């Protein structure tokens, strides 16, 4: 609870700093505030893991929510480090951007720790409404405008589905509380058919928000049109948060065997479609940002594996995968921002010869690509490994084979940029990499390698 209060007060403080023209203080204050919030998050850490829900069952801060909140705060911290001088180039209202990002983070922490469907709904909406705004902050850029409108309309549409699903769950069980819903499932002899319809509609709503196929059609355009920094935020922190919400709902309320027989096939179809569409379309992209957008769809497919093989190990699997994916994506987006700012275009040709001129940038980008592709000794490999073992332990052999084939396709398009950097020569000047970027790149790369070599210290956290 302290975390939510700290971050929302921090947002208002930043708003006031903007009012009093303290533009220099904005970023440091935000970063310090996030560190404080991170410290407060660990207050809820409980080794015995038997925390009680608070505020008449509205929130439940257990180790699961602490881990995901900490991941969200750390990755927001890293992304905001990249924001130095970024918003200033867009418009004069810098303080408001930080405020809205912080509000979105508040929503994310709420959906990582909800214990009542009303909190889930409000958290998701705080997050989405803030993101609609952030997508459109390049007010004079037509692509950004169109992305904002499209994201807004699709987001509102998907909210309708999520709400209808929640309503039907309520109608069948008579409560919004996750534990009450589980008790309903356990105690009733025949589960009402509208409960099944509710599960289906909630899956549709959440998949829309996470961008799983076939509800992905908004992602490429929105990710491309939004400012790169916001795309980084959307495709990492937001995706992780939606999956935390997904996992919490299914693990606490809907994990009984009869219900699993109903929704596992649905998720299997969604996961394989996401893998197929994400990977196949990513191969044909000529632009780095669009490639990342499509590949993020395939990562949603891998993340859905943890839900298909739902067990007590699922939360650490999702956490590890999400952490690996987030950190690697932040490196990729940081490199993208450097290239975009100084070259003006992000097609693969602009990465030619980067290995010679900017060895640090090229090296970190290579490691992040290897991690995203799932090469051993990087964090991404451990994440994929845990997902696949989980799926195999529940006898989804065909699905796992299919996913491994897709991972091979993934290696192909991720390594394209590496090949461009090291093996294609081009006359180019050295790109200037600001100090903040260097810190983010080095820290994230180290984290990727450390998780890849000693996965135990993060996998055993939850």
């Amino acid at each position, binding site marked *: 609870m302290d975390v939510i209060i700290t971050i929302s007060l921090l947002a208002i403080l930043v708003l006031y700093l903007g009012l009093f023209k303290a533009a220099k203080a904005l970023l440091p204050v935000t970063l310090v505030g996030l560190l404080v919030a991170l410290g407060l998050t660990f207050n809820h850490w409980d080794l015995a893991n038997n925390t009680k829900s608070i505020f008449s069952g509205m929130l439940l801060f257990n180790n699961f929510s602490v881990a995901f909140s900490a991941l969200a705060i750390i990755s927001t911290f890293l992304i905001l480090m990249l924001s130095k001088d970024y918003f200033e180039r*867009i418009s004069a209202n810098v303080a408001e951007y930080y405020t809205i990002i912080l509000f979105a983070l508040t929503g994310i922490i709420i959906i990582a720790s909800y214990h009542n469907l009303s909190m889930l709904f409000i958290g998701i909406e705080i997050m989405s409404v803030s993101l609609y705004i952030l997508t459109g902050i390049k007010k004079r850029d037509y692509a950004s405008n169109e992305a904002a409108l499209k994201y807004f309309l699709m987001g509102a549409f998907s909210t309708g589905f999520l709400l209808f699903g929640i309503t039907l769950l309520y109608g069948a069980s008579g409560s919004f509380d996750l534990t009450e819903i589980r008790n309903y499932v356990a105690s009733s002899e025949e589960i009402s058919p509208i409960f099944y319809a509710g599960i289906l509609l909630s899956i549709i709503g959440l998949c829309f928000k996470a961008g799983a196929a076939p509800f992905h059609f908004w992602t490429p355009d929105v990710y491309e049109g939004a400012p790169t920094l916001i795309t980084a935020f959307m495709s990492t922190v937001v995706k992780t948060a939606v999956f935390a919400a997904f996992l919490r709902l299914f693990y606490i309320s809907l994990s009984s065997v009869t219900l699993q027989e109903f929704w596992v096939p649905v998720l299997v179809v969604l996961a394989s479609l996401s893998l197929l569409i994400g990977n196949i379309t990513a191969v044909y992209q000529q632009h780095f940002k669009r490639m990342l957008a499509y590949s993020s769809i395939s990562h949603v497919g891998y993340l859905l594996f943890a839900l298909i093989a739902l067990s007590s190990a699922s939360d650490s699997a999702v956490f590890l995968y999400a952490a690996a994916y987030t950190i690697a994506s932040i490196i990729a987006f940081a490199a993208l921002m450097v290239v975009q700012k100084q070259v003006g275009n992000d097609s693969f040709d602009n990465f030619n010869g980067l290995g010679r001129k900017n060895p640090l940038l090229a090296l970190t980008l290579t490691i992040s690509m290897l991690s995203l592709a799932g090469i051993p000794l990087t964090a991404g490999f451990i994440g994929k490994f845990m997902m696949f073992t989980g799926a195999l332990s529940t006898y989804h052999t065909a699905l796992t084979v299919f996913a491994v084939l897709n991972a091979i396709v993934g290696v192909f398009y991720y390594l394209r940029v590496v090949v461009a950097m090291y093996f294609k020569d081009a006359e180019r000047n050295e790109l200037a990499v600001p100090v903040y970027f260097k810190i983010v790149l080095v820290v994230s790369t180290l984290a990727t390698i450390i998780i890849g070599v000693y996965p135990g210290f993060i996998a055993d956290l939850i």
Partner: protein
Amino acid sequence: MNLFYFIAFLSIFFSLLVIFSKNPVYSVLYLIVTFFTLTIHYILLNAQFLAIVNFIVYMGAIMVLFLFVLMLLNLNEDSEPMKSNLIKVAGVVAGMCLLVTLVGSFRALGDSDPLILKNPEIGLVKNLGKVLFDEFLLPFEISSILLLSAMVGAVLLAKKDPKKI
């Protein structure tokens, strides 16, 4: 009992007019009528407070905002082309969605009990206020963040930039 079916028919009729009328201004006006019929539904369910709020917030605030933007942007011409080839796909998707829910409810039809006001007091301000400020206090407070971020964002986006960048 017949009143419910009559009002339900009116709601469906006007909501169909909302999506099929060519001129957006007519759509807004039909939407207001639809919301009015829904207000009557709330009164029938004895949810008096919701009926009033629906009347004020939806029919008042939200619809005025819609009309305001339509008039401001001069979007009231009926030159919008319909998506001809996509209509079929759309119809199929919507039909599927409808079908799922219909099948779900029809399967429950066997033991469906008539709706009875178990507790007629439930939708009154006194009772709702007690629930809202006791059990649902936290969501109530948190929704202020939602409104605040929407407010900041709406001003940020709709404001005219003082200088060209």
